[in-house]
């Protein structure tokens, strides 16, 4: 590493701390030590053959505000592109590569917009099933994980038995994902359907798809599920969810009292700024992910239209030849 490189990068480099920080020094009056200031990894990377940090975003890019606004709309439509909130699970390179893989899959398969509460039909390639494929219809009760691992759970009630299947969205054996009814529910997850009567999760397999007009807002179904009497899988009376009703005399007064205890309500978490910060992804990283997605999405859609045009043209040519 040449000296001029060092000087260019560390513009304020000074030798100032060559001695041990002993108590003798403190006695002489050097009582305060400033906080530890590490050398920024970005600067170190300039001298590495294989840079490790910030590979996904080598240059700080100023996004076009219109593009940014369009990208931010996709946060709730395609939640799988949101990076993980835990910094220990973050890796900008892996996230970039995963996003590229996801877009490659999206070029082959039409992955529609859907939410928890929507009714979906998924066709899976299955060598052991009749016709080589199996189809399952159900209500989406949960979406979890980020990136390539993103998955969703479909629930149905068949032959007096509740059935749930977890599909990974980018599973290559998925042949078709069809949205039969596009709607949202009052809650982000509907796991309480497991403790509800079957009619709330029963979906017939031969149901016809209800078309959703393009660009129209997604309707919210305000239905309140009436839970079965206890025992339940969870203490639903303690949850913050609003999409269910509890029958009278199902929960004892003592249980209601316990549910309203401070330990269970945790009212101090409402204003906990740092907790919210830890649970969220920094805005810049979100923007980076979703701007990348919007650009790739536009390119993939264009290619799809172009390939359709090509197919139509070849068909016309073939028909001309036969005539």
């Amino acid at each position, binding site marked *: 590493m040449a000296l001029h490189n060092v000087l260019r990068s560390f513009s304020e480099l*000074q030798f*100032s701390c060559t001695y041990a920080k002993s108590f003798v020094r403190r006695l002489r009056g050097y009582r*305060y030590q400033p906080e530890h200031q590490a050398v920024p990894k970005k600067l170190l990377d300039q001298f590495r053959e294989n840079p490790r940090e910030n590979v996904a975003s080598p240059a700080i890019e100023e996004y076009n505000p219109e593009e940014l606004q369009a990208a931010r709309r996709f946060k709730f439509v395609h939640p799988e592109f949101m990076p993980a909130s835990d910094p220990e699970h973050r890796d900008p390179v892996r996230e970039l590569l995963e996003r590229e893989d996801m877009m490659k899959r999206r070029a082959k398969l039409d992955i529609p917009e859907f939410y928890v509460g929507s009714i979906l039909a998924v066709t899976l390639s299955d060598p052991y099933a009749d016709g080589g494929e199996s189809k399952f219809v159900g209500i989406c009760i949960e979406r979890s994980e980020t990136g390539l691992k993103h998955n969703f759970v479909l629930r149905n009630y068949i032959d007096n038995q509740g059935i749930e299947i977890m599909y990974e969205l980018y599973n290559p054996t998925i042949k078709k994902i069809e949205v039969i009814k596009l709607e949202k529910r009052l809650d982000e997850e509907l796991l309480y359907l497991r403790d509800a009567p079957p009619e709330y999760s029963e979906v017939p397999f031969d149901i016809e798809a209800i078309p959703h007009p393009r660009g129209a807002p997604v309707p919210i179904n305000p239905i309140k599920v009436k839970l079965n009497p206890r025992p339940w899988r969870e203490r639903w009376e303690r949850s913050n969810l609003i999409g269910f009703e509890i029958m009278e005399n199902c929960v004892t007064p003592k249980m209601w009292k316990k549910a309203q205890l401070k330990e269970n309500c945790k009212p*101090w978490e409402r204003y906990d700024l740092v907790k919210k910060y830890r649970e*969220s992804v920094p805005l810049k990283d979100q923007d980076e992910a979703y701007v990348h997605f919007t650009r790739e999405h536009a390119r993939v859609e264009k290619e799809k239209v172009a390939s359709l045009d090509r197919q139509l043209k070849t068909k016309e040519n073939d028909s001309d030849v036969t005539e």
Partner: protein
Amino acid sequence: MNRLRVPLNRRPRKLRGTLGLGSGPEGRIERIRMTVTQLMRHERLEGSFAVLDESRAYAELLIQQAAMHGPKNKEVVEMADFWLLDKDLVHKLFNTLVPRYKNYSTSYTDQYQLPNVYPENRMQAVLELKGNPWPPVNEHAVDTSKWIHNVLLTAARKSMTNKTTDTSLSDIALNTGQTHGTAV
């Protein structure tokens, strides 16, 4: 929320019993509220390292959110109203601190670790808002600009700037005068 400009522990400190035995997580928040209020009031605090380090992120985020959304945002005003126990500090936050840190590209606070004092050996620290009216904390800092290494370095920088006309290098030349401020 934007990325914090100060290091943050992955998990929060529990600050057990900080307001008496069994004060719990509620007591932790209450203690941090008091600390953040005092920090905004006096702009420099001395005390337990754990409490100050924990409060630092809250103060940083509060200023960041106030600067991002402004006083017309309902949520931010509610947040400031909760975290600042004295309500005149809400005005100070929006009218004094936010304009002060408008052009900052670094953190809004500084933290210094104090030496342990025998026999308690508790970690003590100083937390301060940047740009405060108090004299600097490390006033005993040594002037290292005349050290032989630094004299050589500044000379090397000067010779470099004479050779090239790169703008980034000329910036470095300007910075050489300020190097004294960063001494340990």
